């Protein structure tokens, strides 16, 4: 049966290009210009899917984005599988492979259809009333079963290899929808010389014009397109759906670029996200046809009348040969006339209105079509395809005896509903027009206009909404995909769900992948009828983005792999790679964690690196530390207010360790601040804190302290920072340096100066995070690697050893120096971590000062930084382990602290740890217990300094 339902009059079908495709493994033929839906219909295939809950056989209802039933999975290969695609939106290509969904073992015989038999027992929301006993059975039995039955298609199981892209655009006028109204609006704007962007979800412009039979429609469309293309400032985007309306006239578009191609080239962009900011938005989104709600309205072969016209006129496909029409709108007559013209038999036109009058009705009468008015539908027959329809007249409000009429297709129409989705998303106000049976745009909050039928329908073109008079409500579907019937809505209202939001959530009407395009307005009508309240009193569910489902991929765009987040590397990164460094992620940075030699483990490498620093000298890349240049006449005053420390007396050429608190008094960041001139400071921050600190400082400067003349510049990337640490540090760098006397006497610990190293300008700081004699050499980033190598070279004779962040952590822990974010956790005050000495007590104020005088901040039970030594000196504690005063190890325990840092110290030949312990500073020497699942490990509380307690080494 090849294209038995195809004629030669499809206006947008290229009959010269035959395309072969498979559906559920069977090969069919279609033509260029077809959708999967039109091609299947041409082959007489109406059964395309199964419904969500009852697994009822379902066919094609619509011809576009409103399709609720005909969902398929389109497969290119294992990774490029797309579930839940509407067959009405799949452009046919040679070799297309589509599969039906939600059926087992196959589409024709689906075991799940047994659910229909028990439909009386599983009404809307049945799952809230049962599956509660026994308690454990929900998670173990009921839920897995429900989950297995639910869901539609199968998600891809392999990584999607396709690419997605993103683009930002601005325009004077964005026109959404390229039907008659949208094209006219775009043309008018183009003629005024404006920058216009016009988009449409279909593969060609024209909107409903494409579905018309008359020659004029086609010609006017061709002419318009030709003219529009002449304007250079006009951008036309086909296959592009406007899915979301965001504040300030920002519209999200999704452009599909390769879905219609048989073999997209590798690397082609599959879909593109456009974020368009428009001066003015014109919504020409048209209107959606309303189905009718009657018993058996879900059988394959029951279709919207307008959709049938589209299939006939655009694709040259007859949905059937013996057609019954149920109409609540004149459009149904037009469909009947056109189909009759194309050779179909019209079995009946059952008009649900009592006295329909109009142009098409008159034409239908003249054509001799069997019109019956004042009718309702009492049922349809057939299983995998509709075979007959029973219609009955309404007499005095009652359903009279019905006639059963044979047919192979039922067309239905309840009229049109303006597509106000985007308007509503823009937070525009909708207004109910009962003469149109529709919500139409009223006041808008954005600079936009609605045009064409999106703005409202002509005259009193109201059609019908809600359900037709019926007795059997259990097969009258309102939401096809989610299997919501009139009976379900009845039940929901009986159970007290009167708000439309409740009815939606309880019955799931309107929550399927068609997002209620065919169901929402009928649900409102039905509820309005049941509760005997006007529609506006029922409420309206919020229209939410997206208008139609859009791929996650477009939002992720380029953000994958290394582009997921910028990777920041230091100027010495390549050197570290060459030296076989192992890296760790610290905020956006890659930092060398250790430099293993041969087959060293991390612990072995770290031990060697630590010993080298203590014995001779280590070389460390500190470039990731945040750096801020603070300049201006009030720079010192600014730092006074910002840091807990006092800065006024810091002389030029000196550095000081600074601590920064948040407004709530908790330590936020630390670093060294060096004074280069009376009005110029060089600040360092933690690696992770750089952006935060700068933002906080700017925030204060711009909002609280506008009186200060201070300018802040981030210089993090400008300087490469090479830390040379160890007793031989001076010997190594001295020969390379000129312009500064770095002798112990002239350049003591905590000095800063400017000079050159190896001929390159340098800022030299004598600082130490290891407790050893140390320098941090700041050179312009471009020279970082060269200077690093020069120092490394010069240090060879002294056994200079590169070390990474792990050794750095151990070295500083031996000295009890805290790491922000490790010892502190956003709940530690300066005093808690032993830094109260840094507070400038004479200062009138600083960020956090007011908070620090609060009761809780003074409490003696606050956790304080201490050292821990395990009784067994080879046991290394686990960071994060909890501390208790007793060895009792069953919950609940009285927890008094936790281990913050814990290492094996090669220098000391034993393990060491830092911890925060309640009132810890008063308990040195006491034995506490670190609680592990297996045992409570005894530890002795000590001061948090394990090496060189007098601090003599730094002054070497």
């Amino acid at each position: 049966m090849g294209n038995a339902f195809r004629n030669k009059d499809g206006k947008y079908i290229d009959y010269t290009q035959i395309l072969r495709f498979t559906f559920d493994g069977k090969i069919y033929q279609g033509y260029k210009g077809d959708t999967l839906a039109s091609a299947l219909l041409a082959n007489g295939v109406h059964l395309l899917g199964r419904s969500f809950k009852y697994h009822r056989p379902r066919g094609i209802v619509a011809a576009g984005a409103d399709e609720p039933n005909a969902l398929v999975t389109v497969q290119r290969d294992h990774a490029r599988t797309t579930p839940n695609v509407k067959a009405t939106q799949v452009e046919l290509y040679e070799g297309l492979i589509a599969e039906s969904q939600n059926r087992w073992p196959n589409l024709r015989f689906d075991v799940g259809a047994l659910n229909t038999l028990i439909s009386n027992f599983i009404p809307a929301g049945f799952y809230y009333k049962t599956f509660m006993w026994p308690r454990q059975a929900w998670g173990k039995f009921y839920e897995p079963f429900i989950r297995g039955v639910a869901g539609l298609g199968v998600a891809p199981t392999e990584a999607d290899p396709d690419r997605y892209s993103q683009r930002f655009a601005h325009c004077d006028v964005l026109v959404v929808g390229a039907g008659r109204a949208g094209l006219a609006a775009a043309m008018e704007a183009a003629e005024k010389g404006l920058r216009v962007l016009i988009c449409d979800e279909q593969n060609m412009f024209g909107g409903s014009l494409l579905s018309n039979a008359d020659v004029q429609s086609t010609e006017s469309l061709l002419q318009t397109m030709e003219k529009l293309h002449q304007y250079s400032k006009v951008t036309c985007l086909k296959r592009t759906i406007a899915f979301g309306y965001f504040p300030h006239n920002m519209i999200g578009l999704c452009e599909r670029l390769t879905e219609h191609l048989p073999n997209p080239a590798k690397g082609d962009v599959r879909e593109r996200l456009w974020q368009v900011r428009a001066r003015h938005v014109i919504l020409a989104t048209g209107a959606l046809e309303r189905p009718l709600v009657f018993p058996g309205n879900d059988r394959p072969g029951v279709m919207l009348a307008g959709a049938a016209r589209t299939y006939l006129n655009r694709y040259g496909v007859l949905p059937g040969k013996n057609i019954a029409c149920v109409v609540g709108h004149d459009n149904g007559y037009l469909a009947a006339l056109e189909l009759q013209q194309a050779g179909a038999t019209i079995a009946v036109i059952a008009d649900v209105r009592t006295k329909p009058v109009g142009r098409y009705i008159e034409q239908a009468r003249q054509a001799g079509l069997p019109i019956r008015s004042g009718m309702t539908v009492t049922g349809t027959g057939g299983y995998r395809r509709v075979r007959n329809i029973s219609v009955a007249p309404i007499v005095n409000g009652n359903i009279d005896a019905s006639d059963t009429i044979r047919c192979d297709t039922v067309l239905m129409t309840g009229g049109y509903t303006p597509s106000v989705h985007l308007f509503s998303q823009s937070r525009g106000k909708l207004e109910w027009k009962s003469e149109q049976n529709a919500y139409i745009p009223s006041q808008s909050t954005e600079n936009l206009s609605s045009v064409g039928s999106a703005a409202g329908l002509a005259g009193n073109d109201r059609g019908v909404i809600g359900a037709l008079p019926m007795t059997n409500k259990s097969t009258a579907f309102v939401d096809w995909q989610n299997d919501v019937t009139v009976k379900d809505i009845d039940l929901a209202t009986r159970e007290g769900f009167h708000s439309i939001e409740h009815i939606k959530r309880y019955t799931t009407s309107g929550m399927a992948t068609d997002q209620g395009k065919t169901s929402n307005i009928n649900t409102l009508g039905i509820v309005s009828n049941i509760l005997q309240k006007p529609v506006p009193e029922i409420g309206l569910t919020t229209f939410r983005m997206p208008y139609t489902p859009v791929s996650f991929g477009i939002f992720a765009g380029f953000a994958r792999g290394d582009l997921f987040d910028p990777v920041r590397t230091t100027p010495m990164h390549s050197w570290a790679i060459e030296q076989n460094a192992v890296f760790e992620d610290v905020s956006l940075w890659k930092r060398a964690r250790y430099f293993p030699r041969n087959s060293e483990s991390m612990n072995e490498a770290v031990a060697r690196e630590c010993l080298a620093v203590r014995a001779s000298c280590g070389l460390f890349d500190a470039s990731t530390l945040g750096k801020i240049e603070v300049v201006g006449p009030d720079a010192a005053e600014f730092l006074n207010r910002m840091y807990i420390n006092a800065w006024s007396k810091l002389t030029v050429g000196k550095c000081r360790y600074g601590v920064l608190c948040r407004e709530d008094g908790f330590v936020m960041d630390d670093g060294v601040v060096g004074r280069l001139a009376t009005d110029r400071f060089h600040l360092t921050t933690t690696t992770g804190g750089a952006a935060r600190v700068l933002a906080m400082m700017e925030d204060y400067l711009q909002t609280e302290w506008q009186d200060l003349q201070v300018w802040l510049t981030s210089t993090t990337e400008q300087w490469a920072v090479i830390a040379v640490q160890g007793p031989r540090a001076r010997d190594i760098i001295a020969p390379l340096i000129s312009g500064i006397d770095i002798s112990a006497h002239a350049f003591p610990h905590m000095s800063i100066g400017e000079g050159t190293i190896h001929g390159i300008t340098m800022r030299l700081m004598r600082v130490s995070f290891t407790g050893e004699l140390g320098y941090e050499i700041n050179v312009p980033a471009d020279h970082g690697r060269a200077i690093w190598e020069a120092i490394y070279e010069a240090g060879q004779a002294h056994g200079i050893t590169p070390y990474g962040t792990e050794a750095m952590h151990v070295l500083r822990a031996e000295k009890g120096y805290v790491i922000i974010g490790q010892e502190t956790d956003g709940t530690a005050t300066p005093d808690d971590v032993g830094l109260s000495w840094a507070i400038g007590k004479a200062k009138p104020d600083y960020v956090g000062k007011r908070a620090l005088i609060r009761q809780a901040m003074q409490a003696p039970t606050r956790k304080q930084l201490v050292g821990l030594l395990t009784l067994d000196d080879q046991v290394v504690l686990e960071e994060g382990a909890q501390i208790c005063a007793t060895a009792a190890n069953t919950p609940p325990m009285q927890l008094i602290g936790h281990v913050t840092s814990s290492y094996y110290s090669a220098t000391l030949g034993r393990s060491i740890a830092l911890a925060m312990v309640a009132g810890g500073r008063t308990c040195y020497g006491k034995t506490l217990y670190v609680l592990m699942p297996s045992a409570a490990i005894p530890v002795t509380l000590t001061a948090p300094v394990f090496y060189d307690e007098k601090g003599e080494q730094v002054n070497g």
Partner: protein
Amino acid sequence: MRLYSGFALLKAGFNGQKNWQSLWRSPEPKPAYDAIIIGAGGHGLGAAYYLAKQHGIRNIAVLEKGWVGGGNTGRNTTIIRSNYLFNESAALYDHAVKLWENLSQTLNYNVMFSQRGVMMLAHNVHDVQVFKRHVHANRCNGVDNEWLSAEQAKVFCPPLNISANMRYPILGAALQRRGGTARHDAVAWGYARAADDLGVDIIENCEVIGIRRDATGAVEAVETSRGLIRTKKLGVSASGHTSVVLGMAGVRLPLESYPLQALVSEPVKPVFPCVVMSNTIHAYISQSDKGELVIGAGTDAYTSYTQRGGLHISSHTLEAICELFPMFRRMRMLRNWGGIVDVTPDRSPIIAKTPVPGLYVNCGWGTGGFKATPGAAHLLAWTMAKDEPHTINAPYTIERFRDGYLIDEAAAAAVAH
């Protein structure tokens, strides 16, 4: 109340499911109540239920500006867990989890609490330290939480990408097996039905516009869009709008309200077995019983009462989802929505008496209120009934922001919750 059960459903099946009653009545407000709660979300309805059930107060009204469960109860991603760091937090959230475990039976309403496990991913050394600290603290507090290697995490959640080549490779995960999800609407409906059955008046479309205080300063009535209603005990549980309501009684709260977004994909067959959270790269995902991937995004950076967030915020979350689960790039967003969350300076809630006698508040749940629903409700009811806090909510005062006794989970863990 007609009991719900499989048998009742079966029986009803033979008469067309006709005899079910309204879950709750729609009463006209009475002139006075012994207690009034503002906000008919899960927290407010639950508080009314526990007041009636456990404290013998039956003359109660719950006032709701819109419809039952229309606020954050029906807008969240339904994640439930209790593996919080601090003792106070673990006690609070685990109190809730214990109530969750029997909630369907308690309410005779299936809230579909599903203990499918909540797994939190560690992406760097700092994360590992933080999560291990959580695991240790939780164990000592009797809360289940275990550390998994990346490979073990992959076994628990097969779609997870544990490639070392990721931008932020997964170094391990903390798993709370008792954590999971529940059906959010059902929680509101179940509490509403059970409270109504105990005589509680649930009054929808009733906006509070003023709070009247007597000469001593104590609460005496609320002014509403449906008239004046007297009461001497007023509980406020209005999430994002709590500061507005409390302002009517002259109480200023340290709250900021932000839009928070979530989204779901189209439904697919079971593909995602648990809940996965990654605080470092901002991804929160599970799969609903219906088959939709349920994904939570972050808050906007600015305060607002609009129930929608910025596109860049949801995009950022989808970037993270696609990075962790690259097979989901072809999945499609079906619906995106927003709610208004009220955030305190320490990201922990307030469940407490206020300086105004007779006025009680339950707020500041930020992005994590749903998981606490039964616990918060129970504690608010207790506090209102006894005019003093339960030991569990005693630390959650308003005064802690003045005195500095903060319970700073966000600072401690850099964790959204």
